[in-house]
């Protein structure tokens, strides 16, 4: 159970990204976060694994206060929270398998990891993760040699190495074409359904949210605008979230 209480984030330059957000997300839910660019979607996700320190409020995960964790504790917590990024955030010059193994750094002996040594069991785990996202044969290619969709699957494989209980996906398909988008979303759905992972996924397109999410959260200017089922978003609500001039675009 992820519980967000009175979460507020004000950036150094005074920009208020999140205003008093309250949320409860039970384990195993596929939650989609929608909203315009700059509405606070990325900030919310990054506050959950403390890549960004919130200004006020608390985030409790299974009873542990993430916002009060020390550096060591936050690393322990982050190991159980996977994150997937819009720009994939792979090290382009490294091989695919090194990128995947990097997801395991929080678990292995820091001394050995600094000289690039990974036990055999970890390499097998990495290959298994790559196999699961269907690109095991690319393991020894450079990450830059892969297509966008393949790179995002490497990102998912890297997350799998963490053995996570929750996945934060920040616009995971915004840089991909519609067909690839669906394939990547299907992998997220698979992790949600098969492994029972909680998924928090920010999306641009409402149609994707309708197709995959159990629940939709809408942010507007850092305020929680809507929280409910995807089917509850009618035309009126849509215009409330995206503004009067917006027209819903279908993505197939």
């Amino acid at each position, binding site marked *: 159970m992820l519980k967000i209480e009175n979460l507020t984030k004000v950036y150094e*330059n005074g920009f208020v990204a999140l205003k008093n957000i309250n949320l409860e997300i039970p384990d195993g839910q596929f939650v989609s976060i929608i909203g315009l660019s700059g509405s606070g979607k990325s900030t919310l996700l990054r506050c959950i694994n403390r890549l960004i320190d919130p200004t006020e409020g608390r985030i409790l995960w299974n009873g542990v206060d993430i916002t009060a964790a*020390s550096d060591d504790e936050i690393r322990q917590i982050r190991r159980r*929270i996977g994150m997937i990024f819009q720009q994939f955030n792979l090290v382009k010059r490294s091989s695919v398998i090194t990128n995947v193994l*990097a997801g395991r*750094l929080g678990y292995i002996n820091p*001394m050995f990891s600094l000289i690039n040594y990974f036990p055999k069991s970890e390499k097998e785990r990495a290959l298994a993760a790559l196999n699961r996202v269907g690109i095991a044969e690319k393991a020894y290619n450079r990450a830059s040699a892969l297509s966008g969709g393949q790179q995002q699957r490497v990102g998912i494989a890297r997350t799998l190495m963490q053995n996570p209980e929750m996945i934060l996906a920040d616009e995971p398909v915004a840089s991909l074409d519609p067909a690839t988008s669906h394939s990547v979303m299907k992998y997220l759905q698979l992790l949600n359904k098969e492994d029972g992972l909680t998924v928090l996924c920010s999306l641009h397109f409402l149609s994707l949210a309708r197709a995959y999410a159990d629940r939709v959260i809408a942010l507007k200017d850092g305020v929680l605008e809507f929280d409910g089922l995807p089917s509850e978003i009618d035309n009126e609500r849509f215009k409330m979230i995206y503004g009067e001039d917006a027209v819903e675009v279908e993505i197939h």
Partner: protein
Amino acid sequence: MNTPAEKPQSRSQAALRRLLILVGLAVVLVIFAYGWDVTDIDFTVTQQPQRQQNVVNALSELLSPNVFTQEYTIQNTTTSFVMDCPADFTAPAVVPSEDAPYIEITPACGASGDLVTVTGYNFYPNALARINWIATDGERRIRQTLETNDDNFVTRGDGTFTVQIEVPRIRGTAGETHTIEAQGSFPDGAPHLSETTTIVAEKMVETIFLALIATTISIVPSAFLSFFAAHNLMRPVRIPLGNLLVSFTLLPIGFYVGASILSNIAAFLMRIGSENTAAAAVTGLVMLFGAVASTPRLRHAANGQEHSQLRSIIMTSMVVVVSIALIGLVGALALMINRLQADGILGYIVRFIGSLGEIIQLIVVPLSGIIGAFGLASIGTTLTRGALREVSIPTSHILGAVLGALAGAVLMGIVATIGMSAAWLGLLTPLTAAALASPVLPQLYRRFIKNNPRPMGTERFLLSVLSWIGALIAFITAYNVLDVSQALVEGVLPPRLVVASIAGFDVYLYVAEAMLIGAALALITGALQGTRANFGIGSVLYNITRTILNALRSIEPLIMGLVFVIWVGIGPFAGVLALALHSIASLGKLYSEQIETIDSGPIEALQSTGANRLQTIVYAVVPQIIPSYIAFTMYRWDINVRMSTIIGFVGGGGIGFLLQQQINLLRYRDAGVAVLAIAIVVSILDYASAAIRERYI
């Protein structure tokens, strides 16, 4: 634009702009003219015939480098000449010969300054010849002929020559009989490289390796420093002030423990190791094995908070002891290898490893001190971290005051000790005081006047003014109390008055005063901030590293070379040190700029997986910067080769030393060889480094 009201305004604006451009151009002209004047530009000098002749001669010699040389067979023949024509003089008869060379001189007597004609027969045709004048002192004086104005002249196709020479002006030679010698020479055997070329080649090899060694030495330190000089890595590094103060206060104690106690481990290993390698190796392996074997067990045992603290402390102590022991072992091994007798390639390697061993021997004590300092600081942080987080807000401010006073005293103690070594370094003490005092006024403002944690616009400006005012007051106070002006103006170092002697250390009055100031200022700052405030240690380290790198970079290697020549004497070693130091500064800057341009995405991604800071750097930063690091290192080697060709001008070894000697002796043809060698090597390296860089960028 269409409205009539706007037109005249825009026209006047355009006129104003034009006027401004004109004024700007005039200013540029004045600056340029001043520069022209300052640099003594005078083209009439270039027109003077004598100077033109000189430069043509020098250039023509420089452009005729004596790379090659040839053996010559020399023909010799002499005739006599009587000075000042005695009354009874009769010219001796010339005996013509069929094949042997001979010369005829007319007239056969004469006074100093007279012109005489020398005619030669049976010399090598079309070959170089010269005339020597041998007086009664037996010394050969080459007489330049009037026709060629040169030492040498060329014989005719039939082996004869006719030249005019001047009788030399030698005092007190009246009536003496002098000898005139004609020497013909003929090339004999194949041309081969001259002695100059051999020496130049030798020195060129020295030059290239001087550059190579200097570059290689600088890679590791500059790569290390570059991480501290990259703002995108350092800006986010913040730690609670309490932890920082605890570890900083422990640094000198840790250094003392490391340098005076733990370094004995390394010294002991080095002593027995250089005598008995087996014993040292066994000891080292046992320690290493113990360390590695106990790691997972401890990790396993760690469940509660207490256990994890204990484990972390044991781990840190073990890392400290093992790393000091390893240094000792490596040193011992190197020293042992040094005692092997070897020649040739093996000899180079033995001597190289031996000198590494000597370096370890030299730095083992300070290095142990540094390791000990960081070890103790880390243990202190581990022990107090939990407690510091739990303390209540009022307690945190009291703790901040106490720890702040301690840390401030330590910091100012270190700075003042450095400040005692040179007059202008004394400025460091008031500067540090200013830095310590700068947060005081903004903090007071925030706490008592306006409680807004995030300042904007004018308020931010006000805060920065306040911090400058506080810094200025602290600076002036420290400046006056410590009497820095005396050092600045008169160059007098602070007096070494001992106020107390603690554990064998003399505490000077100057240092004690500085420590008191530091303690007082840091007490106020610490009390206001509290131990729970986040301190941007990263920005501080970034600024210090950047300042040092920039200061070092602004000093030319030639000037550094001068200092190193004083330290280690004339020779390539001084050049290596000078170039290495400058390369560290400039590669550090170049490298850090590369880090600043990397994609931050992978860093964020790795942080989100729970990787620690070091792992994030190894896996997300290093792969991104390696290509440009290689390219910049090549570029720096290229620069270093250029620099090393002239570092010899200040005694730094390499080809510059030779070049300078040749120029000073006016041996331009020899200098020409050196210049040619430099041109060839630099252009080859230029090309090679460009080709390699192209491949990596």
